[in-house]
């Protein structure tokens, strides 16, 4: 024993020295990579002309707009491609203190749901509106996963203009998928739930999953001119998890396809329980036939309770309406409407190629990528090549619909898009790469490592009839060492890959906001010319708009409400001196921006407000509610640097104790008495 210790003592310094040398070598190796001399593994695939391929000179515009979902931030981020420059963040399901969205009196109603005011959601999938199967740059549809909602963003203003709650749904993940002319935007449920058939979920024992739980697929009609949404009907489907969907094209354009997992109908530890079956299903739904069934009286009706919130174009006021019923179809009563195709194993992505013939299913736990054939599916339906049925829905034989399997594609295939030149690109989450394969012979032809663990990928128009096959954006879930560290939480990373040639070329890394799950991109010239520069003051029909300074006013209404009708123009607010407000009053500042020029928003904030600021675009009116709690003097000011005299754009409100006899007065520059207060 002693000798051992002695031996160790003798050996320890040597060992330490050895370790130090080894560590030094390792560190040197590290510094070599970190030094960025191009020797690191992570930069080997970088194209030599990458810098010039993504360089957009100062003052020049990007070739494409891209819209990346923000995942758990409930927003959409707009990036220029190929530069990767962040152009805008569009708040959708989340309150946005930056501009008052969800805080201002006008916009609050956008976030109303049957569960009350829900100021957050998990936004996964943006989808551009379509004309003839091509993105048309009019609207962007996005889903809220947590409290099921579908929203529409107007691409003339880049603002959320409509949010519709989806009844009979939980986990609105499989959403929103527009058909080729936006006839419908389709939304499926990821979490099946026990429906009480009265618009809610039943109080059901959780071990009754298999018998009681159901999913739903919603068909939202879209007004062809204005884009307004309306829930036409739902299909109540077996209680699987509906994951993603994709619409057919060309020959398959009447169909929409859904991946499902948990065909085991496991209600707990799904990680294991939902991973037992060798095959889950690809659900194929003939939406045209479904619409026909619904029209021809096959649809039943049940009570429901869901919110539909719309932003008025001219007043910028959001209004909620509550819908009280919903129509639904049962697949077992609608022959020919729905089929199940066995698909290995817990599939995620379903992607129909530009010709509409191939349905590519990326099974995240599968070892191959199955490619189904639409024409074989038609044939199999005709010849009734069924493998039994599930809840009254025929299951097609795997071999009868399978075209081919892409062998050894990589590990963890998630999602596929197409370049329109006969190639498909699949993201591999586990092996962290993008794999290019040919649709002609289903063989892998190229691989590009990505950093790290790519989720979805996106080719502009890669989900449409005519992809813009020049770029691919890989959205990576793990960032680790790609950027300077910023503590435990890191920005997610996107990578831009040139796919114009035989071999993929890595061009650019750029950090993204929150967690993009999917993206869309469109040629800039389809969106930019229609971009609104400011709102016309003449068209502003807000009930509290003030169109000229002479009309500004402060009035007491009833006992506790004070309405301030204020104007903002470079570089003052009218009125900027207000007296006669009392502790506990509810003060509404209705601020109208009188500017009629591009890029001159004014902001408004008042000390102690318990909400946020509000940004007012030229020509618009926005309202901030404020309830002062203490007597005193409170400054307010313009928060958006508007002019050389922006710092001077400020004013004061005097707040007197409750019951004080200070009359309401207001002025700008020189004093002016208010009309006699109408206190009752």
């Amino acid at each position: 024993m002693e000798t051992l210790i002695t031996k160790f003592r003798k050996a320890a310094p040597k060992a330490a020295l050895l370790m130090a040398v080894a560590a030094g070598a390792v560190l040197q190796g590290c510094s070599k990579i970190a030094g960025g001399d191009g020797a690191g593994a992570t930069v080997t695939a970088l194209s030599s002309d990458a810098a010039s391929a993504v360089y957009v000179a100062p003052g020049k515009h990007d070739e494409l707009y891209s819209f990346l979902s923000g995942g758990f931030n409930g927003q959409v981020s707009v990036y220029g491609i190929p530069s990767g420059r962040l152009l805008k963040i569009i708040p959708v399901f989340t309150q946005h203190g930056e501009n008052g969205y969800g805080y201002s009196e006008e916009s609050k109603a956008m976030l109303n749901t049957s569960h009350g005011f829900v100021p957050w959601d998990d936004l996964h999938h943006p989808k551009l509106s379509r004309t003839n199967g091509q993105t048309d740059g009019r609207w962007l549809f996005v889903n809220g996963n947590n409290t099921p909602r579908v929203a529409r963003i107007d691409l003339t203003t880049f603002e959320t203009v409509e949010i519709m709650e989806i009844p009979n749904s939980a986990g609105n993940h499989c959403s929103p998928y527009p058909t080729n002319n936006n006839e419908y935007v389709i939304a499926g449920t990821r979490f099946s739930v026990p429906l009480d058939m009265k618009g809610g979920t039943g109080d059901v024992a959780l071990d009754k999953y298999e018998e009681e739980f159901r999913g739903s697929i919603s068909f939202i009609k879209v007004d062809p001119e204005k884009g307004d949404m309306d829930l036409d009907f739902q299909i109540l489907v077996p209680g699987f998890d509906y994951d993603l969907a994709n619409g057919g094209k060309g020959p398959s354009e009447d169909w929409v396809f859904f991946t499902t997992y948990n065909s085991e109908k496991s209600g707990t530890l799904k990680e294991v329980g939902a991973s037992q079956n060798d095959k889950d299903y690809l659900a194929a739904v003939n939406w045209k036939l479904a619409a026909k069934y619904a029209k021809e009286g096959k649809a039943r009706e049940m009570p429901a309770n869901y919110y539909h919130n719309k932003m008025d174009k001219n007043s910028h006021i959001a209004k909620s309406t509550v819908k009280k019923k919903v129509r639904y179809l049962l697949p077992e009563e609608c022959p020919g409407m729905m089929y199940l195709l066995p698909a290995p194993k817990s599939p995620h992505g379903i992607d129909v190629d530009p010709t509409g013939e191939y349905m590519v299913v990326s099974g995240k736990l599968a070892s191959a990528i199955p490619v189904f054939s639409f024409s074989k599916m038609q044939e199999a339906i005709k010849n009734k090549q069924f493998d039994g049925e599930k809840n009254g829905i025929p299951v097609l034989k795997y071999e009868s619909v399978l075209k081919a399997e892409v062998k050894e594609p990589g590990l963890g295939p998630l999602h596929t898009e197409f370049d329109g030149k006969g190639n498909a690109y699949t993201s591999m989450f586990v092996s962290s790469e993008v794999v290019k394969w040919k649709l002609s012979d289903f063989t892998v032809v190229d691989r590009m490592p990505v950093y790290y663990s790519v989720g979805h990928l996106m080719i502009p128009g890669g989900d449409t009839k005519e992809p813009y096959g020049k770029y691919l954006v890989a959205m990576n879930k793990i960032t680790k060492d790609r950027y300077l560290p910023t503590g435990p939480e890191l920005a997610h990373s996107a990578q831009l890959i040139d796919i114009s040639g035989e071999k993929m070329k890595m061009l650019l890394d750029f950090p993204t906001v929150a967690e993009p799950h999917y993206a869309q991109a469109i040629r800039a010239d389809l969106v930019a010319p229609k971009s609104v520069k400011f709102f016309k003051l003449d068209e502003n029909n807000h009930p509290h708009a003030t169109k000229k300074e002479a009309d500004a006013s402060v009035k007491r209404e009833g006992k506790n409400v004070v309405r301030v009708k204020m104007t903002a123009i470079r570089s003052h607010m009218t009125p900027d001196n207000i007296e006669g407000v009392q502790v506990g009053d509810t003060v509404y500042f209705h601020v109208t921006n009188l500017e009629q020029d591009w890029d001159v928003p004014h902001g408004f904030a008042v000390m102690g407000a318990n909400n946020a600021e509000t940004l007012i675009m030229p020509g618009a009116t926005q309202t901030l509610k404020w309830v002062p709690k203490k007597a005193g003097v409170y400054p307010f000011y313009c928060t958006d640097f508007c002019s050389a005299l922006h710092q001077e754009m400020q004013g004061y409100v005097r707040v007197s104790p409750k019951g004080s006899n200070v009359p309401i007065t207001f002025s700008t520059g020189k004093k002016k008495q208010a009309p006699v207060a109408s206190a009752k």
Partner: protein
Amino acid sequence: MKAYQKVLMIVAALSLGQLFMFPMWKIYLKAPQYPEGLELHIWVNKLGGSSDHVLQNFNILNHYIGMEPIHAESFAELKYMPYIVIFFMITGVLVALIDKRNLVLGWSGLLMLSGAAGILDFYLWLVKFGTNLDPMAPIKVPGMTYIPPLLGNKTLLNFDALSLPALGSLGILIGITLSLLVYFLSRNTAKQKQASKTKPALA
């Protein structure tokens, strides 16, 4: 006057109609913040610009230096000028029909005089707006006035101003040129007339 000369004279009179179709003067402003430029258009009967709200944006910018806001209502000229133009158009046509050469010259001369008076009036307005500044203005540069150029360009703080006659004024120029041309061309006709008058006396 020969028939074609009468036609030319009528064209001269009608070309003034351009004043109702196009601005007569344009002031172009350019600044770092206005890469797209701001254009103020001066018509015979109104003020306009490259967009609907140019005047408001002009006035917002000008209020910093204490310039009085520009409103169409402030200019009585915009109300009576259209009548003057119509007067010239009608008299021009009459002159062509009356067929008196000296009237052509008279019409031309009067038109030139009115044009010159218009330009002088315009200049006086520019001086008035450029120098009559509010002493309470936020931006005061000692000794600085902001008279926009009458013709050509000038730098005013961060703005580069360029002032040029526009298509409407071209109507006046055409009117003057054509009427003078008619006067010049008709001199032979007049001689012939005189000759034909004197011939019988000789015979």
